């Protein structure tokens, strides 16, 4: 048995049967990381010392049979956008290259309380701005299925680590598709919860009205285990919603009979890869065969989502990133002439090109004379996009689309053309604009052997239905079982 291939629920059973200890399991993951991470480069900061301590504590709990959860002793990776107390948290930015948070993010605290083991901090696009992890200030991550291709982004390290068996599961964050798109590119499960379901306290802010933390896992069951652990209201995040959290495990129903699933026409966009289109339609046909009713539906404002998103997210980012001024934490330039000069030099040295580009765009759309034309207009169109979904969900339980219009593209293919890069998020962005939950699951492969993701979109706080569709598909197909070869 290759331990690093196990899911969390499988590893949990072995830990309970004492087939191996968490210490041994953790060791086997570091062996795997040593063997493959020189190729994949999923991790920025390993947490070996801390991980072995957590594993030992987990083993003690298991030995005593006290306070054991499904995550006790389970080795995970964390996107480096999540604050970890006294462990370097960089957001893959040079401006935070020496930042050691004085506290844990709420999700980190919750996982810690559940006994999880943190193997390390995963690479990402700087400040989560990107779709390929090429914008990291500390080097690119490669797709385990083809090392010449991107792993997706911005949670590229988190997704690649799961796909390459360098952890059991991981956490990412999703502002415009940053969990779902890399999950699709890497052939794993990525879940973006409803906005407000998971506390954002300790998540370094990119675009606060869109950001949401969620799991990246090897199967849907693990996704529910992580969601049970990280969900819930938090007084430290006033946008986290105080509604009851279901037991997500109960959503694992292998049956879609009678479910009404809508297929948004507008999501089969021009320029979509034919292999992606074929794989998604095959998945839809299977769900229909298994008893779901399938109908096409129109979300007429879809074509405006990308423009809307890049106005709102850059506006919010320009404001959120104003805090990086070289005063309280992070990088400070040397050799400046006064305070304003210090700000300018610090920020220009610390931020990479994409972050600068987005701060510029966001500052421009919020500047005097342009606010109404851009920001206000975008927030109005956002309302129309949301209403399209509201109307669809009056009739449908969930919507099915591709996660990304193409499989993972080549490293370097889109770096020179930011607009083309932005358009690669076209199928995931509307979900964030409307604050909906969405999941990407593996649904097939391209002729070149690259994974393809199926996106399932649900109503606010109706995550169980999309998990049920995802689980049914997974239980009755086997594409999630295929793994990349890295030797």
């Amino acid at each position, binding site marked *: 048995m290759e331990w690093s291939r196990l899911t969390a629920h499988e590893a949990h059973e072995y830990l309970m049967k004492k087939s191996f200890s968490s210490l041994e399991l953790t060791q086997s993951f570091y062996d795997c990381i040593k063997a493959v991470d020189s190729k994949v480069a999923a991790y920025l900061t390993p947490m070996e010392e801390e991980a072995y301590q957590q594993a030992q504590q987990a083993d003690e709990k298991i030995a005593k049979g006290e306070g054991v959860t499904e995550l006790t002793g389970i080795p995970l990776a964390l996107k480096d956008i999540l604050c970890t107390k006294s462990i370097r948290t960089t957001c893959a930015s040079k401006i935070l290259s020496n930042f050691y948070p004085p506290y844990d993010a709420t999700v980190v605290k919750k996982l810690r309380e559940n006994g999880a083991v943190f193997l390390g901090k995963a690479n990402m696009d700087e400040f989560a701005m990107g779709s390929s992890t090429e914008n990291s200030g500390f080097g690119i991550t490669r797709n385990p299925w083809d090392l010449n291709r991107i792993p997706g982004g911005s949670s590229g390290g988190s997704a690649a680590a799961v796909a390459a068996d360098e952890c059991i599961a991981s956490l990412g964050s999703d502002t415009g598709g940053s969990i779902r798109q890399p999950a699709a590119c890497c052939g794993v499960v990525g879940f973006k919860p409803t906005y407000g379901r998971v506390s954002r306290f300790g998540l370094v802010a990119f675009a606060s009205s869109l950001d949401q933390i969620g799991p990246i896992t090897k199967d849907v069951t693990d996704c529910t285990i992580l969601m049970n652990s990280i969900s819930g209201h938090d007084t430290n995040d006033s946008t986290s919603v105080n509604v009851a959290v279901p037991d997500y495990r109960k959503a694992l129903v292998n049956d879609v009979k009678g479910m009404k699933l809508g297929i948004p026409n507008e999501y089969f966009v021009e320029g979509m890869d034919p292999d992606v289109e074929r794989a998604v339609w095959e998945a839809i046909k299977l769900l229909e065969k298994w008893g779901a009713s399938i109908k096409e539906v129109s979300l007429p404002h879809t074509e405006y989502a990308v423009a809307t998103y890049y106005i709102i997210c850059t506006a919010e980012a320009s404001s959120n990133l104003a805090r990086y001024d070289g005063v309280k934490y*992070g990088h400070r330039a040397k050799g400046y002439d006064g305070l304003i000069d210090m700000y300018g030099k610090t*920020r*220009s040295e610390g931020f990479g090109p994409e972050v600068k580009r987005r*701060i510029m765009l966001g500052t421009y759309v919020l500047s005097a004379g342009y606010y109404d034309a851009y920001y206000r207009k975008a927030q*109005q169109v*956002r309302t129309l996009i949301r209403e399209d979904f509201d109307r669809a969900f009056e009739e449908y339980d969930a919507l099915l689309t591709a996660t990304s219009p193409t499989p993972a593209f080549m490293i370097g293919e889109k770096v020179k053309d930011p607009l083309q890069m932005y358009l690669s998020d076209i199928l995931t962005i509307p979900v964030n604009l409307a604050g909906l939950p969405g999941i990407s699951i593996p649904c097939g492969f391209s002729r070149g052997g690259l994974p393809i993701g199926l996106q399932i979109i649900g109503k606010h706080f109706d995550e169980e239905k999309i998990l049920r569709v995802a689980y049914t598909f997974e239980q009755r197909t086997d594409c999630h079982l295929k793994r990349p070869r890295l030797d």
Partner: protein
Amino acid sequence: MKIGFKDVEYVAGLARLRLSDEEKEEFTTQLDDILTYMDKLNEVDTTGVEPTSHVISIKNVLRNDEVRESLPSEPSLKNAPEKERAFYKVPKIIA
């Protein structure tokens, strides 16, 4: 042209970014492309449409104004590039 070299310089000043001439040139072209793409939104009639301020309808969140534990100054200052006693140190502001 939606945006020119001078505009890029002005916006960089607002954003406290110091850009090289090369960067300014590149941003002028790229931002112009992106802003031109964003003109798409003008096709949409938004007369009378309420802008989205929050995607989930939640009311104002209030709490009692009670003293709670906060971060002590030592760990708060630990990441400061420059500090003195219990203060962040910045360049002189008032001449």
